């Protein structure tokens, strides 16, 4: 049962082969049992979760079922969910119980899903290893010595170890795709504006995008059907007709032009990753895709541009955490200024403080033009690169990350090394394009490798089609870490 797809689970529930309470209890038991090793969850609240499962069973009994009725889904702790601690992995919000539901949480509830728990993450989603959490690092389900990837590492580890059938994550510069890659699962970041950001705690507003993380492309499509759509409470949400992301899953991908950017296979890509990704691309070719070499010349500028723009927005987005109205406040302080300083010094971790400082600096008088405006120009150039590439191909494929999951602690003291690991995902984020990662093999120490698929705006259905066809022909996505079976 723990390996069943969402369709199989929905069918079993609808046919009353299993109740939501039984199903939910199974995953809750696993989550509680394995969380000691993985630290994938910040909050598990079995009573609250089981109450939702019981309510789902009542609806099933009345024949009133929605696509996800009774199926547990875990939420990255960045999503506000009414009554749940919503810490965003930070001491700053260690006591913040959300009084409202994020738009995607509302949508999951309307679709009948049961909230399994809140997953661990890098503090305020700032990180690529889920080590910067106030609640301690997440461990990789395939190798507990390794990081799970980040920032949605808790969601990735929970899906990988089958502690939940599926989870939601968020992606600002790769935070869904990279942990999916390192944890051997599937994850998709939709086109910017497809999923509402309302109730998703902001890191960098112009980049943040929520998305599903699951075992297969088919599950991703089902989840994306539920969580996507216009939301009047988010000005950047796109007002367009609803799509059925499952519609193209079974189509042939023969004749599809797949672009392979040469910059993604240059220096910096580990050999084990390169060979797994090349094998994955060869598989696509076998399925009839035509390979096209494309170029994304500004790739090397994507990391510096991102690490100006994202911190700039973050420095402002995180100003509200001041100890005045909610969240952490320093226990002792003198005047107002002292209260601010102590609260923020104690409430934020190192990486968050580093980014607030960078962001404050690049927005400062006299530096704004040289950094912020310059980075915005680079951002436009990067987006143009992708548009030029898409004139020659339908989709772009390549590695999601330059390496497999690294050891815990290996990069924590070297932020630049950590940032460079985002090189293949960041350009997609800066361009607002949809990107996904699916498992395509294993590298060193049998740690998973992800294949990244990037589409043009609103090409999610096509990307999911390719991923699904790949997964019909391969079994990388069905493998799970032996320690949790």
């Amino acid at each position, binding site marked *: 049962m723990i390996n069943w797809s969402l369709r199989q689970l929905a069918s079993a529930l609808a046919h009353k082969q299993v109740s939501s309470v039984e199903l939910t209890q199974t995953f809750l038991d696993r989550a509680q049992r394995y969380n000691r090793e993985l630290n994938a969850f910040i909050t598990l609240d079995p009573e609250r979760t089981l109450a939702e499962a019981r309510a789902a069973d009542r609806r099933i009994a009345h024949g009133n079922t929605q696509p996800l009725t009774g199926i547990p889904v875990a939420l990255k702790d960045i999503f506000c969910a009414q009554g749940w601690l919503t810490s965003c992995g930070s001491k700053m919000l260690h006591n913040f119980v959300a009084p409202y539901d994020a738009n995607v949480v509302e949508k999951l509830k309307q679709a009948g899903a049961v909230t399994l728990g809140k997953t661990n993450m890098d503090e305020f989603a700032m990180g690529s290893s889920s080590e910067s959490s106030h609640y301690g690092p997440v461990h990789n389900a395939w190798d507990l010595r390794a990081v799970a990837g980040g920032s949605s590492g808790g969601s990735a580890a929970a899906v990988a170890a089958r502690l939940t059938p599926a989870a939601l994550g968020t992606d600002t510069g790769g935070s869904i795709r990279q942990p999916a890659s390192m944890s051997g699962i599937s994850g998709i970041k939709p086109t910017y504006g497809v999923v509402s950001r309302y109730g998703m705690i902001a890191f960098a507003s112009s980049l943040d995008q929520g998305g599903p993380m699951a075992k297969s492309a088919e599950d991703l499509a089902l989840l994306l059907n539920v969580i996507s759509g216009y939301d009047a409470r988010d000005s950047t949400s796109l007002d367009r007709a609803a799509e059925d992301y499952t519609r193209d899953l079974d189509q042939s991908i023969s004749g599809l032009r797949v672009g392979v950017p040469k910059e993604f296979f240059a220096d910096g890509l580990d050999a084990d990753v390169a060979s797994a990704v090349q094998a994955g691309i060869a598989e696509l070719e076998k399925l009839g895709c035509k390979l096209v070499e494309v170029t994304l010349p500004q790739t090397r500028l994507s990391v510096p541009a991102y690490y100006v723009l994202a911190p700039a*927005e973050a420095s402002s987005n995180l100003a509200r955490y001041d100890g005045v109205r909610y969240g952490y406040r320093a226990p002792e302080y003198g005047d107002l200024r002292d209260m601010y300083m102590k609260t923020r010094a104690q409430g934020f971790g190192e990486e968050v403080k580093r980014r607030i400082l960078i962001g404050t600096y690049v927005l400062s008088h006299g530096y704004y033009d040289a950094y912020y405006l310059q980075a915005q120009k680079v951002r436009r150039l990067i987006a143009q690169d992708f548009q030029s590439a898409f004139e020659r191909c339908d989709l772009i494929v390549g590695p999601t990350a330059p390496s497999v999951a690294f050891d815990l602690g290996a990069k924590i003291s070297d932020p630049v090394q950590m940032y460079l690991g985002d090189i293949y995902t960041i350009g997609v984020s800066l361009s607002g394009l949809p990107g996904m990662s699916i498992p395509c093999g294993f590298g060193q120490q049998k740690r998973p490798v992800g294949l990244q698929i990037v589409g043009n705006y609103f090409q999610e259905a096509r990307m999911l089609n390719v991923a699904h066809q790949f997964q019909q022909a391969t079994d990388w996505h069905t493998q799970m870490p032996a320690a949790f079976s």
Partner: protein
Amino acid sequence: MQWEVVIGLETHAQLSTVSKMFSGASTQFGGAPNTQASAVDIALPGVLPIANRGAVERAIRFALAVNGTINRRSIFARKNYFYPDLPKGYQISQYELPIVQGGSIAFFVEQHEKKVNLTRAHLEEDAGKSLHEAFHGMSGIDLNRAGTPLLEIVSEADMRSAAEAVAYARTLHALVRWIDICDGNMQEGSFRCDANVSVRPLGERKLGTRCEVKNLNSFRFLERAIVFETRRQIELLEDGGKVVQETRLYDPDRDETRSMRSKEDAHDYRYFPDPDLLPLEVSDALIDHVRADLSELPNAKRNRFQHELGLSRYDAALLTANRETAGYFEAVASALPQHPKLAANWVAGELSSRLNKEDIGIERSPISPAALAGLLRRIDDNTISGKIAKEVFDRMWETGASADEIIEREGRRQISDSSELERIVDQIVEANPAQVAEYRSGKEKAFNFFVGQAMKATKGQANPAQVNEILRKKLAQ
């Protein structure tokens, strides 16, 4: 040395929308603290702003009223600073691209016409309130006002006296009320001014160092603060000192301005475009929609009064000083279509001065436009003289009765019966032979004596033109 003061004003007009600039919470004044603060207003994690269309429409209305340029694409920007009554740690405002640029405001100061150019007007949200009293060493925060929509209207440094600044502020105040974008309530803070004041030697072209004076929530404070600040700067310069660029606070109790913060401790607000809000696009359709909803704007009305009704520029300006006065005048004038000037003279003259004296707004005038028109009609048809009309006007004011009632009841009808007037004149001529001799010897002054006597005998009701004519005739004999 002769000095010249240079003044520019920044005015915050609270827009009269039902809900806030970026949230659905109510903007009603006076609610219990924090009862009108939504999740967005208190800046909970994860919430997002949505621009209020009503506020945008009001900004467009303002642009149309001052002949400003409406930017079809303007940008909301974040102004970052920490303060407990600023929940997000930034204020959403407009910086590089405001919704309105340019435009002007024209008015009269005494008899001289003045035009003040506007730099810009932009949309922004208000902060909350910090309450420092009654919390024993702590401060209370009330976020009801946080997020209230404001239009910040920035003038050029075009004013040269406190009187001009006050006249500008009054004209602007009347305008925003006229076009119904702001209730203008200064006690509640719906209309507040900051003044940028500098002085320079008369004839000098370079501007002096300016100080920004804040907390001017009445026209009187605005005037007092500028007068004080001008004097302070002149005295400082004449004593060989230098004006330091700073923000100063006006203290009405002491009638002085005090330094609040200098340029050195000025914040670096780190403005940048708000990534939560798309650029604000204003379409032709929206502008047309706003325009269609507008009644005749003050400028257009002023021109019409001047060119179609033949009023002086001054009267036209006076009668369009606010919507109520214009409405009153138009009601009187439409009842007397042949005599717009007579209507203008009375509304701008007798009525206005009486209203001023008693400190009553024209909308609460005890004499209605129809009643005033009734009085003017009796002047026009010679039932009463202009002089008697002023007395009838006073009686109307006191009693609420119509002009006709008073004229009849109190016998104020003008005597135009020539045989009656001739009889009266004959009696006077007969009774005053000495003055007759004086007049006939060439002393023209003596004529006035006879006019006075005739008026006295008729209790002022004699038709003055007729009395003159009869007197000339009789005295010439």
